[in-house]
């Protein structure tokens, strides 16, 4: 019977092909909107997460902050040493300083910043060397004038020339030798809102001695093993630093700790909430599409009153007539859902391309949207179908 009903429904849809298409347009647009929004949301989330994960996972960033007692005392290498050696689970602890400089080479000027950081810091932040080499222990210990340059600095100062490796670069008054170039990291992968590709990195000691003129650190990073709990490491870190900074019980911390995992979660949940909201708005258009289906089905029942009378006279049961109209509504909606999925596929890919976010295919949202459109068919087809099945055959046959 179901096969026959399906056949009847398909025949009916084929008989009114244009009207069927226009009816389902609401569903098509609704489904396409929901899927496109969710897919783009996932793409944006993925791209943000990629940026954040390039900050390094399982990494804390520690920096002094101002309290009512005055500015927080800067950290120095001893603090970093203590964290690395006294807290179990810490794999790497490394400080960093920054200074604004003008890089000059061969008459080319470029405003950039110089960052003092050792190999431990590069490892903790997943900063990779593309060509050349990283610092040697001796260079770090002696504070040699060697540097690694970011892609933007390379492009600005060594445009299309031979390899910059071995070239001499002047940063304000300090001359240094380029020993390597950094792999491009992209936007957003920076701790202090700097473009992480527009940077010159020198050994920490070199920058402290030549640029900042003190042994202070601006911040330091703590990379810990994934097998330790983030909260446990954070608590140990706070205890140790309070002790080293001689804070009395009740005094607030004059330093702050940023947990990249927390930032990641916060951004994910924020983009997730935004995606859900936009999807909900798109879902409303799906509802409106469903109401369109109901409207047309009601018109269809009235228009086909005589036909319903014929079917009933021939011996169709009330539930068969109901099933027929319900099937028609569901088939229309499923058809709309499928076309919507196809449309969403094209839209998502082209918009993702235009917005420069990755296209992340999400089977769940596709399946759910499809099932939801079928559900709309049942929900909004039920009442018209019921009305059709309750017609009196004699009245229906007399209907003009």
């Amino acid at each position, binding site marked *: *019977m179901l096969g*026959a009903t399906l*056949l*009847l429904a398909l*025949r009916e849809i084929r*008989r009114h092909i244009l009207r069927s298409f226009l009816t389902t347009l609401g569903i098509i647009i609704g489904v396409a909107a929901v899927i496109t929004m969710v897919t783009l949301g996932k793409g944006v989330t993925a791209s943000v997460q990629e940026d954040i994960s390039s900050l390094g996972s399982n990494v804390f960033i520690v920096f002094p902050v101002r309290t009512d007692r005055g500015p927080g005392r800067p950290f120095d290498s001893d603090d970093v040493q203590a964290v690395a050696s006294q807290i179990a689970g810490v794999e790497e602890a490394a400080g960093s300083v920054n200074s604004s400089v003008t890089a000059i080479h061969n008459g080319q000027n470029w405003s950039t910043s110089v960052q003092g950081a050792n190999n431990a810091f590069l490892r903790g932040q997943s900063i990779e060397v593309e060509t050349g080499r990283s610092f040697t222990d001796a260079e770090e210990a002696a504070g040699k004038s060697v540097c690694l340059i970011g892609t933007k600095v390379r492009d600005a100062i060594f445009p299309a020339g031979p390899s910059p490796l071995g070239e001499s670069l002047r940063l304000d008054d300090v001359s240094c030798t380029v020993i390597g170039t950094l792999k491009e990291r992209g936007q957003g992968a920076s701790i202090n809102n700097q473009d992480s590709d527009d940077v010159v990195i020198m050994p920490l000691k070199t920058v402290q001695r030549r640029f900042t003129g003190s042994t202070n650190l601006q911040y330091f990073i703590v990379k810990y093993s994934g097998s330790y709990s983030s909260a446990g490491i954070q608590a140990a870190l706070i205890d140790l630093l309070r002790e080293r900074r001689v804070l009395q019980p009740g005094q607030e911390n004059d330093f702050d700790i940023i947990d990249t995992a927390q930032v990641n979660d916060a951004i994910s949940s924020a983009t997730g909430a935004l995606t859900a909201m936009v999807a909900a708005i798109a879902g409303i258009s799906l509802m409106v599409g469903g109401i369109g289906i109901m409207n047309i089905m009601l018109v269809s029942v009235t228009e086909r009153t*005589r*036909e319903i*009378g*014929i*079917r*009933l*006279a*021939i*011996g*169709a*049961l*009330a*539930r*068969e007539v109901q099933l027929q109209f319900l099937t028609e509504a569901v088939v229309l909606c499923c058809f709309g859902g499928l076309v919507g999925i196809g449309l969403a596929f094209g839209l998502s890919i082209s918009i993702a391309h235009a917005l420069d976010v990755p296209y992340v295919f999400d089977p769940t949202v596709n399946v759910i949207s499809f099932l939801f459109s079928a559900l709309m068919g049942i929900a909004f087809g039920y009442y018209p179908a019921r009305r059709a099945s309750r017609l009196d*055959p*004699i009245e229906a*046959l007399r209907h003009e």
Partner: protein
Amino acid sequence: MSEDHLIELEGITKTFGQGAAAFQALKGVDLKIDRGDFVAVMGPSGSGKSTTMNILGCLDVPTSGIFRFRGVEVQSLNRDQRSLLRRRYLGFVFQGFNLLARTTALENVELPLLYRGEKASVRHAAAMKALDLVGLAPWAHHTPAELSGGQQQRVAIARALVTDPDVLLADEPTGNLDTERSIEIMELLTDLNRRGITILMVTHEAEMAEYAKTIVHFRDGLVESVEQGSLASQGAPA
């Protein structure tokens, strides 16, 4: 006793509306129809013939009285049970043909079989056979709009026949046709009757009623008279 007659109406009344607006369309109809009969129901409009046909067609139930069909008391059946009776034992032909528009003759004739849950091949074969019986096999793939009135009524008859019913109910089957087509349809019905199908036909045209074996006259909600048809008395049954 009840097995002797295919259809038995005993004291059938039908009242439409309620209270002061109530209208009694049937005031106690008694009628017995035997298997193989060809009955023409006649009477002026408002005499209750259509109401009686609706009850006989199991489309409506009487207000009071007993309607036995094949020994089953139809007045106590529910809507779906009556639908099943129509599906199995009854075929309908209407004045306005009532074919599904934009649907081929073949698909129209297949329709009752669809509700019986027959397979596509069975449906197709039976529908073609029925169309062949009414002489429309070459027109199987035409839609009603492409057929003449007489052809449309033949398709409707084929649709009524395709389930091999006990009774064919025809409500003014020639009402929308000219005399020549009307005679063709009546000859077709007579032929079907000879093959054993009981036919109940409402008509207001005396010359069409002449094809029937039995003519029942209605007046004011009651059976006025039952007489033999003149053509039937010429010894048509084989």
